[in-house]
């Protein structure tokens, strides 16, 4: 035992962690319990839930929300000045161009990574990938889940953290926060071929009406059978009881017919959301928010933005061994996002909670990729290379003022030249992270001192790859 690190038994941990039962380790392990905060900041607490759409691959800012018009711009991008005075590619983002007053755009993003795997890690964990700490660093979603455990109510039948369409091998899990804060994985990896496929929302936790008689018959049989097991009464190893507890928790969800509804996507919604993987995920995200059943962080991956070649013309790809010619390009990626995000914003604005408040007012939506692309004309491959010196983030809901545009890039769109916010430096992923935490009412200066490595875990780390930076909330986004 390491005497410097306070030890908790597994039982104690279960109590400390709000006695929640997503999962745990079989052996007594170290768990965080001395969370400290500098108490110098006041979280905004405008959101109950955050929906984070990860544009995996790194979208081109100058072909989306930071449009730059040049000789390279195809005519059918149809760039127009919206009612707010912002130029938008109506040909790529028709619905979102109409709704320019519903979201804010940050155009002064900078990143620390320009490789996909490390960048995707950075977005999820909010810090550089340290090989020494891979096992213990939790993702942002897990921190949000962990923070939400104390406030869970009896009718919260859904997990605090749901991750959709994410490649499990790129997913950052719950690290030192343990299985209680780990994500429920739904859907399938968004390869290019999978883009067109309806999201697979099958989960062992869901029982359809048709399956219900069998489910109940078997559950009753199993309960009767377990009473007969002569495991030795009091001397039965405790793990048997622990696993049985999880069975009962699983039954709790399976018995609730609302769970299946949350993960069901009606055909009409599938079409309205653009009939794509990201669209289906957004429809489920809407269901998760309106169910108000304890889900606090929803992660959605839309992969395919890494357009190194033929970005405008299109690339061939395969679906189930069949060739689809030219369908993978900037247009299709944008159209998928456009339908999904616009419909999500509409639905959240129109649906109201029991007190009559629109759901969008208490839901923060964040859309961004792991970095931007190089500016100017397309390169020799007719695509764009990676660029950590520019990029965009889109935020909406939870008090974010629609129509706000922060910062600007130069004429070619590859480098930030106006920051547009009070810290007068580029906006980093950590600043977006602090904004998410603030909006969710989480003090982003908190740190967990007792970690397996012994190194404190800071919710937002101030030692970046470019030295110490005072990261913080982007208050300009809020009204």
């Amino acid at each position: 035992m390491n005497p410097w690190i306070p030890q908790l038994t597994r039982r104690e941990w279960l109590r400390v962690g709000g006695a929640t039962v997503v999962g745990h380790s079989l052996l007594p392990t170290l768990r965080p319990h001395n969370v400290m905060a500098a108490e110098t900041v006041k979280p905004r607490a405008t959101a109950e839930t955050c929906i984070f759409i990860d544009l995996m691959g790194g979208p081109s800012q100058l072909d989306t929300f930071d449009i730059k018009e040049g000789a390279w711009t195809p005519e059918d991008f149809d760039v127009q000045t919206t009612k707010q005075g912002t130029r938008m590619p109506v040909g790529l983002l028709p619905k979102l161009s109409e709704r320019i007053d519903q979201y804010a755009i940050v155009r002064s993003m900078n990143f620390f990574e320009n490789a996909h795997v490390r960048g995707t890690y950075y977005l999820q964990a909010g810090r550089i990938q340290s090989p020494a700490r891979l096992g213990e660093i939790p993702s942002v979603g897990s921190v949000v889940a962990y923070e939400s455990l104390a406030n869970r109510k009896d009718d919260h039948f859904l997990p605090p953290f749901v991750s959709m369409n994410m490649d499990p091998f790129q997913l950052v899990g719950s690290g030192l926060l343990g299985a209680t804060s780990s994500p429920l994985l739904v859907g399938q990896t968004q390869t290019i071929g999978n883009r067109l496929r309806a999201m697979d929302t099958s989960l062992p936790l869901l029982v359809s009406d048709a399956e219900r008689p069998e489910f109940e018959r078997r559950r009753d049989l199993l309960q009767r059978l377990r009473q007969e097991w002569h495991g030795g009464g009091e001397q039965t190893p405790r793990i048997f009881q622990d696993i049985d507890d999880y069975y009962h928790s699983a039954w709790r969800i399976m018995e609730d017919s609302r769970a299946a509804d949350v993960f069901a996507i009606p055909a009409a919604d599938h079409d309205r959301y653009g009939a794509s993987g990201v669209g289906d995920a957004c429809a489920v995200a809407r269901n998760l928010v309106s169910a108000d059943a304890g889900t606090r962080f929803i992660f959605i991956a839309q992969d395919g933005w890494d357009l190194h070649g033929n970005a405008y013309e299109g690339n061939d790809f395969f679906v189930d061994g069949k060739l689809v010619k030219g369908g993978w390009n900037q247009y299709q990626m944008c159209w998928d996002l456009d339908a999904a995000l616009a419909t999500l914003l509409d639905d959240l604005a129109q649906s109201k909670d029991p007190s009559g408040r629109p759901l969008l007012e208490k839901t923060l939506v964040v859309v961004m990729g792991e970095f931007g692309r190089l500016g100017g004309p397309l390169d020799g491959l007719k695509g764009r290379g990676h660029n950590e010196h520019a990029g965009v983030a889109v935020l909406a809901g939870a008090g974010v003022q629609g129509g706000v545009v922060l910062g600007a890039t130069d004429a070619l769109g590859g480098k930030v030249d106006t920051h547009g916010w009070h810290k007068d430096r580029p906006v980093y992923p950590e600043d977006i992270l602090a904004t998410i935490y603030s909006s969710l009412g989480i003090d982003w200066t908190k740190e967990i001192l007792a970690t397996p490595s012994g190194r404190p875990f800071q919710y937002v780390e101030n030692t970046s790859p470019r030295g110490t930076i005072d990261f913080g909330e982007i208050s300009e986004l809020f009204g």
Partner: protein
Amino acid sequence: MAMGSAVVGMNRVSMFHQPRQFASQLTSRWVALLCIATAPAVLGQEPERSPSEDASPAAALFQEHCAKCHGKDGHGAGQPQRNLVDRKWHHGAEVTEIEATIGAGVAETEMPAWRDQLSPETVTLLAHYLLSLEAKKHGATTTPRGPQATRLTNLASANLSTATLPLPPDRNLIDEYIFGRLRKENIPHAGLCSDADFFRRIHLDLTGRLPDAAEVRTFLADQDATKRDKLIDKLLGIQYSAEPVPADYQAPWQVGEPFVSKWRYFFEDLFRNYDECSLDTSAFRNYLVGFLKSNIPYDVLVRDMLSATAVNSTSSGAAGFLVRQAAFVITHEDKCDQNNVYITRNFLGINLHCISCHDGSDHLDQINLWLSQKKRVEFWRQSAFLGDVHILRPGGQPYYVLVEGRRKDPRPDAPNQLGMAGFEFGPFTDPAQTDYRLDLLTYLRTPRDPKADVFPAFILDGAKPRDGLNPRHEFARMVTESQQFAKVAVNLIWAQFMTVGIVDPPLDWDLARQDPDHPPPAPWELQPSHPHLLDALADDFRKQHFNLRHLMRTICRSNAYHLSSQTPAGYEDRFDRLYSRKLVRRLWAQEIVDAILKATTVSVTEKDFSMNSKGPTRDVLVGHNIDLSRFLDTFGQSNRDTKEADTQSISLLQSATMLNSTMIKSKVLASTTGSRVAQLLTDYPPATWWEEDGRVARQILEELFLTTLSRLPTPGEVNVLLEHMRQHQQVGLEDVHWSLLNQLEFILNR
């Protein structure tokens, strides 16, 4: 899916709680009454009490162990052959005969052999109690007199749950240390496990597979006192001998496939054999299979891997280790560092990640005493052993080149020459001139210190390579000759069998906290639970030429390994580290899949790879079979890259997966071709089930229990399941098999 504890508590089916509460009251009452019990009371002489109200220790023992089948009052619970008070002593009416029957069980019936679970004294008490039950029923008295009465009085006044159940004898050096400490500190401990428990346990631990039903039957009926040892040797591929050191091994081509398959998978996880960017993995896999089949000494394996060269890694398995650890790393120095980290972690048990970027001081002071005194430059020096190794991947090829060479132009500012052209190759034996340099910027890392001395030196003792010898070969020798290498190996294997390492986690050692003669300064404590055992096992491992199968055999032959997993009265969490019972382990993800396949006889894919020698390898899975892939992820399979196998956690999603995933549900269907249920329905049509008082239905149940849980059902289980089958017929049988896959013990090795 989290939810408040109150929810879980409220939702729990109350009737499920009752048996446990009952057991708990029973035990405490029994212990409390032990001190005042007298011999006549033990024998149930108080006529006004019915047996089930008898609060004597013997009565409590009877209620706990016997009443389930024989009824609370011994009337046989409706089954004449189980009646103990009908004066028909089928197996002898003398106390000694009754004791023998309890101890050995009755073949071909459900009466188990209790000698492994109950002490001789307990069996004696029970035998007398049975006689008293019968006597009471028939109005006689059987008060023992003389010495026997005194003995029974003494027995009844002792705490049977702990003190009178002696530790099994020491069988080998493991027991001397494990039991020695339990005896010295008077720690409550479990008894030996039953034959059925052992049979399933050893199969899962050595081979990762469930045994066949027929094998279970044969083993339980076998009267050979050495049957457990014989089984261990058989599964290991050793010609049986009683000697502590095996005399003879099976020829490689005769070695059982399951054993090789399980440990090949284990070492592939450990050495991260993953098809990064379509890299070939089969050469390294086949190499590990050869190592296991031929029982190559472990130090020879490691030396071979650390010294390997390959012009093409698809044709050199040994190169697989160094090649893999350098994947995705661009700079030469980073490849050296990465390999240094993984070599030191896997073979010396030390995590050098932290000091690869900074000194230990001011960083690790409260984490690892030894590492806190280590400097970054010492890490560099050890990396320099690998300085001449170049690992290059020809563009787009599924293999690497691993050669020893030096830059032709040694100037720091020499242009970077890609490929082999910039190197010269040959026997480089001057360690002062390895091509590991500190004056270069490395990828995504801080600049290094060009003034530092980075001549190769071993991190454990500063040893330098001998003049004229290849530094890398010298490094391989230093690693494998160190006592630490042997200790890490035995501890790692130990942890797979005993669930917790003597140093735990098994690959996270603090070398300043190992020596009991030189304990670390307060408040640090020694890291290993049994430091002397660790050294003794390591010495034995070295003496037996790093023979992995001998090591496993020694562990499996110890009585410590044969303890039951039951928690004895007075048990505390901290006893887990003392091995006073066998710690339950959850099956590895791939073991659970194999167990499902074995129990249901339905393969996962048409290729059936899980049941053949390849095993469910991750590279086959991704993108190919989403059900299986998700199943394995849920149970924590390693991705052999960023994620190590998680064999410890249990979760709600795991339970839901067992209850309701296609992996499980499709395999219990009668309509699924080749399923166990389909076979049973063909062999035993439902019309025949209820003939002769349900003899066939019972036979079906027995078959399902033996193939799925490797044990016979209890009478209570039989009653519940028969009733269900009677009500639902064919569908009922599907439900029954599903319910056995969902018995809590299915995914555990206890």
